[in-house]
């Protein structure tokens, strides 16, 4: 059993924080046995990022830095990770459960003939097993799962759940040779979101609006608060279905499942499908007119009141506190 291989995702020349969370967790799990943690970094023009990974617990960093990896494609990236797994023969392959990670994990696992423990919130190693806790039924229940006889077990770790832990260490960096592979699904174009907008699935703070915001134009109040807090904007299914905002913002059972440090639900009653998507947030704040709204049962803090009146005051106060430092 030779440790953990951790897939590192980068975007625009920056290592994604979610990948460092996965790498730190791999380092914590292998520390008692001294098993090795190997990071694998795939991309183009990414070699410069490799040395820093030693500082998060990777004793060895494999780098596939080639033009054909400039954009993520599941076929090429799965081939690269497979090549790394063949070198390392790990007990587990970790990656973050980002959009890329969740897409890649299925392709990779099938290629290796193994199963994947997806979107886990706890993970540990037993002598002959990789075991994890993962939310199922969109968080209405938690399953403790193992990978059976799969070897390695692919594991995707939910972003924002595992701590990043820098350590005083360095890793060796080696190029990774990847065989030629047919890439049939190719990226023709990437349309970036407006700059500065955080993705709701990965943000540390999420401010969500619901029907209690009364009209689409009032979502500006949600955006203002999100901006003041450095937060991502989320939405309830009701206002997505009503066409107020795009589905990319929806939090809940048929949208994103999020676990931020702070989740503010503004004018959201808290239907079971919405609660399923956000109830694992560390601190939940509800602002709603109806004191009987189910969202208050999930809330750590709340205000019974009109979100249209509370939000501008809260935004102003947050700005004032931030300015104070």
């Amino acid at each position: 059993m030779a440790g953990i291989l951790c897939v590192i995702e980068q975007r625009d020349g920056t290592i994604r924080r979610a990948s460092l969370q996965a790498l730190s967790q791999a380092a914590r799990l292998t520390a008692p046995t001294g098993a090795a943690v190997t990071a694998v970094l795939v991309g183009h023009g990414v070699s410069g990022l490799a040395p820093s990974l030693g500082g998060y617990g990777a004793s060895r960093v494999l780098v596939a830095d080639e033009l054909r990896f400039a954009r993520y494609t599941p076929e090429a990236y799965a081939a690269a990770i497979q090549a790394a797994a063949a070198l390392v023969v790990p007990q587990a392959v970790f990656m973050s459960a980002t959009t890329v990670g969740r897409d890649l994990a299925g392709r990779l696992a099938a290629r290796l003939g193994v199963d994947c423990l997806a979107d886990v919130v706890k993970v540990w190693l037993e002598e002959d097993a990789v075991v994890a806790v993962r939310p199922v039924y969109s968080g209405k229940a938690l399953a403790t799962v193992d990978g059976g006889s799969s070897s390695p077990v692919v594991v995707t770790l939910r972003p924002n759940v595992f701590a990043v832990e820098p350590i005083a260490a360095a890793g060796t960096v080696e190029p990774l040779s990847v065989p030629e592979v047919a890439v049939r699904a190719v990226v023709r174009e990437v349309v970036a979101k407006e700059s500065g907008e955080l993705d709701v699935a990965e943000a540390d703070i999420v401010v969500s609006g619901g029907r209690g915001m009364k009209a689409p134009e009032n979502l500006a109040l949600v955006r203002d608060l999100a901006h003041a807090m450095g937060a991502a904007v989320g939405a309830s299914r009701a206002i997505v279905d009503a066409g107020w905002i795009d589905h990319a913002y929806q939090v809940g059972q048929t949208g994103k499942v999020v676990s931020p440090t702070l989740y503010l639900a503004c004018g959201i009653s808290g239907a079971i499908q919405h609660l399923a998507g956000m109830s694992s947030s560390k601190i939940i704040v509800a602002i709603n007119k109806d004191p009987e709204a189910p969202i208050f049962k999930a809330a750590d803090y709340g205000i019974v009141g009109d979100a249209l009146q509370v939000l501008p005051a809260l935004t102003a106060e947050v700005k004032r506190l931030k300015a104070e430092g």
Partner: protein
Amino acid sequence: MRSCVLLACVPDTASVIKLGAAGNRIDEAGIKWVISPYDEFALEEAVRIKEAGSGHVTVVSYGPDRVQATLRDGLARGADAAVQVTGGETTFGNALAIARVLAAAIRKLGGFDLVWAGVKGVGSDNSLVGAMVAELCDLPHVSGVLKAEFGGGKVVAHREVDGGMEVIEAPLPCVLTAQKGLNEPRYPSLKGIMASKKAAIQTMSVADLGLDEAALAGAGCRWRSLALPPAKGGGMILNGETDPAAAARELARLLREQAKVI
């Protein structure tokens, strides 16, 4: 265009989840079983493609006899043929086993230009089966499709990614998984419901596909136990009806000084 749509039979999203006696499954008493919501988008798109030109839509589901109702629902919504792979009790939540069974069924049925699934099966929430089936059938895949156009033996698909949108081109046959936003699924028509009741469902067993369910079950994920998340309660709820600004200031103070999150 010949499409295969993989349908998962899952508890309705409004279901209250309770633990079952076995300790690693939910209590199925009173659960209403439905087509997994993302699979509805997949089916709707396959039916629209057929209606816009010509073609044929086969719905396939792997599971115990309750999936027959799922398949009939699929027929009522416009599918032409339905196939049940029976079994699945021991491979529950095991994406690798499910994908191996479905891939074998797809190969046995043969001749599809497109294989559709939802981006996620609501319930086990794995988001794995589509990409696994693609790999096992040696096909390209695009996951989380929001728009798909076809022509010249190719698909051009739009998918949401972290930080933006990707436009992907892939040759057919191809596996596509549907994201919410792809379309607005129809309700089954009365005529469709009546016809689906009489329609024949083709059945095949895992053994018919040359596979052994016990071996599949051992090779992949096992649910050891199931628990309900710890109940919250006793949150600090402020009255903001008379003085919203004061309540907002107090909330900000609590978040900063007590919760230490801003």
